[in-house]
């Protein structure tokens, strides 16, 4: 157990690096594309809402800016009963 703690302590820089990468990807996305993301979010929610009821708070639209490509990540939480409806349809 002590050994694990020791190893963990030695490795605090990689943890710092990873936390920063995740955080800054998020902050940059919000900074650079705040308008675009807001529009995308609204339109995506509207399309989904035509078929299933979704809670607006459970829709996450995120953009990660990389060196060569950027990724658009859309994460929508669909309530259980709505998921069942989707599966049937």
């Amino acid at each position: 157990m002590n050994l694990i703690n020791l190893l963990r302590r030695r490795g605090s820089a990689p943890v710092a690096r990873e936390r920063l990468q995740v955080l800054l990807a998020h902050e940059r996305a919000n900074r650079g594309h705040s308008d675009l993301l807001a529009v995308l979010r609204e339109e995506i929610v509207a399309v989904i809402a035509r078929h299933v009821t979704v809670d607006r708070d459970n829709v996450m639209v995120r953009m990660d800016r990389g060196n060569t490509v950027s990724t658009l990540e859309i994460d929508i939480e669909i309530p259980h009963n709505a998921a069942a409806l989707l599966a049937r349809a």
Partner: protein
Amino acid sequence: MAKVVVVTSGKGGVGKTTTTAALGAALAQSGQKVALIDFDVGLRNLDLVMGAERRVVYDLINVVQGVAKLQQALIKDKRIDTLWLLPASQTRDKDALTEDGVARVIAELRESHDWVLCDSPAGIERGATLAMRFADTAVIVTNPEVSSVRDSDRIIGLLDAKTEKAEKGQRVDKHILITRYDGARAARGEMLSIEDVLEILSTPLLGIIPESQEVLRASNLGAPVTLSDPASGPARAYLDAARRLKGETVPMAIPGDKKRLLDRLFGRRAA
């Protein structure tokens, strides 16, 4: 026609004022005409670090508001005769700075100097945005530590959006200056490495200033570290960084390598 450089960071206490003094002195030591402007209105310190605190008569706000002429407010350094300081006001607040006034001061300094170094206050408020507003080049002072790196990233975003150059569709030339770097701790994985910081911020490196007691000693004495002890680690790193700023190619020395070797030779005695 001077190049205007903003020394900025977002986070406080990372070494902006130390860096402005040392880089400015280093450039002036090479014969260039350098003006340093303290933008930290209300919390001025560049005068103290430069050892000119008892010679302040007029300040940036006086010049911005037309109370004093620029030539009356500029303090000529007693050690290097191509180095001048324009102190901030200690009694006013940052709202007294106007964009037009700052533009006028910088335009005038551009005519008479080779370099204008703007020492930004911490934060992203008026003082900081006006310090970067007319910059051609930015030196982003960063400690290898999460909060400093995050704030540097935010400042990079502002440099790309809120400067006059950015609004004209041009780019401010950005450089990272890593300060308080401890090579031994980075090697042990206790501190973010140079590569980590540069990769995260994807901005080129201007220099690496080692953590050193000499920096505190220099500010105690009121002398830029490049003057108080030119042979010390931080002074050499600042002198190299100043040459890179002038466009010279200078190999990057990673502080700590030599120390580690000495540690090995002398049985890891504490410095």
